[in-house]
């Protein structure tokens, strides 16, 4: 795993390799990756989300990059295709909302 990239793994085992900076938009991931404790994630730069489906995790990764662009550019609108309210979606919302 390259130093500035991290891997986010969905429930189905899909691996999303994204910039570490993007992943750190989430406070939860930031804590996992920067904590001085002994998270396995810190070593390998990999985080698994057994409750989050692939489609949702993809959307979340898109959000991370959009969020980074928000501050630096005039990009304001984000085309958000309709999200199905399923229990895994709710997990993602709950998780992302911190």
């Amino acid at each position: 795993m390259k130093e500035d990239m991290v891997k986010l793994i969905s429930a189905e085992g899909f691996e999303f390799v994204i910039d570490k900076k993007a992943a750190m938009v989430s406070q939860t991931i930031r804590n996992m990756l920067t904590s001085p404790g002994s998270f396995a994630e810190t070593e390998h730069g990999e985080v698994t989300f057994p409750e989050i489906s692939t489609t949702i995790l993809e959307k979340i990764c898109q959000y991370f990059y959009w969020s980074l662009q928000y501050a630096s550019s005039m990009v304001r609108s984000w085309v958000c295709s309709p999200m199905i309210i399923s229990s895994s979606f709710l997990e993602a919302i709950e998780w992302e909302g911190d």
Partner: protein
Amino acid sequence: MGGACSRKRDQLDNGDNLNGRVSRRFCKSGSSKWLGTSFTRASMDVIQGNRRCPSLMELCIYKIREDINKYSTLSMLPRDLSQQIFDDLVYSQCLTDSILENFRDCALQDLNFGEYPGCNDNWMDVISSQGSSLLSVDLSGSDVTDSGLFHLKHCKNLQALNLNYCDLISDHGLEQISGLSNLTTLCFRRNNVITAQGMSSLSGLVNLVKLDLERCPKIHGGLVHLNGLVKLESLNINCCSCIADADMKHLSGLSNLKSLQIAFSKVTDYGITYLKALHKLALLNMEGCPVTAACLESLSDLGALLYLNLSRCNNLTDDRIDKFSKLRSLKVLNLGFDDVSDAILTHLKDLTNLESLNLDSCRISDEGMVNLADSGLHRLKCLELSDTQVGSSGLCHLSGLANLESLNLSFTAVTDGGLKKLSGLSSLKSLNLDARQITDVGLAALTSLTGLSHLDLFGARITDSGTNYLRCMLRNQLCYLF
């Protein structure tokens, strides 16, 4: 983790609409807002260049709002999500009868409709379907009727109920809520029809901590029903013009009372004697009451008294104002528009806890100001001298007030020359010099006041060259009015 675990409790209890949405229909009485102006106005927030990026949660909630017509129910969602969706629909004014149906049986905790147009009895069924989860509901300004309130019987755990400005509710409606014994907050402002009969329905609300009945003109004789509400800490009966001394008798046993507001009632010095034993009383608002300084005798043992409003008391004169000196715990005192003279300052100068003093339109002159020099008023932060006869020579006595943050000299006799005497008041944040005789010359003296964030020069004769001085004082948050 978790989107919205904590429940926001701040919005409901306040009839003053501090949640930011201005009351559309109703102007608020000046009386119950006097505390807000007792201290320095907060400086404007620094406006950020970029808006905060919306969270993924917010984006999803907006999207759900757009697509709300696709859903028939949101009851499968965790409560904290459906709560956020509800709040967003109210805030964006998108809620309708049919959309509200989505929230049936959602076990929501807070339904803050707050003067939402269209809120009426038809909505009460969905509201009551929240059942024992419902903790607070705000139906202020709505068209809910007495029979609508019947539905609330299903919400046994209801803690806060706001029925301000509900014109269609009468004594019969209060009967419907008489069994909600978990209520801690009840707001029922401005209702012309409820009487002592309706008040009897409140006697079972034994957990009531806060009761707001401002502007209910027919409730006299009804306060007897409150004498069992021993947990009551806050009672607002401002502008209940019918309230008289006999009503005050029933408050004498409410030993937990911390805040009592009886502005513009008919209570006299005799009625105030019933308050002698209320040792926890911290706030007392007697604005516009026919009391004199004699009533202070009843208050002299109240060691917790911090806020006292005696403004617009037409019978308050210099007679017996020496009693003010006994109120040693006082932090905020309002004597605006009272017929008191310089003598008042001799009796206030040793009130070392005093932080805010309002003498608007009182007969104060430079002679009275002498009392402020070498006084005990070290903590004084806010001083209102608007419309008094204070002039430039009086200002030199202020130099010892090292903590003064807010000073109002509008419509006084202060001149440009006098403003030099303010130059040492480095703690000043807010200064009102709305007076026609102030000109550019006076502004030059103020350049040392680098802490100033608010300066009012509305009626003063300032020109462009005068604004040059202001540039020296300019910090991040300077705001000035012309």
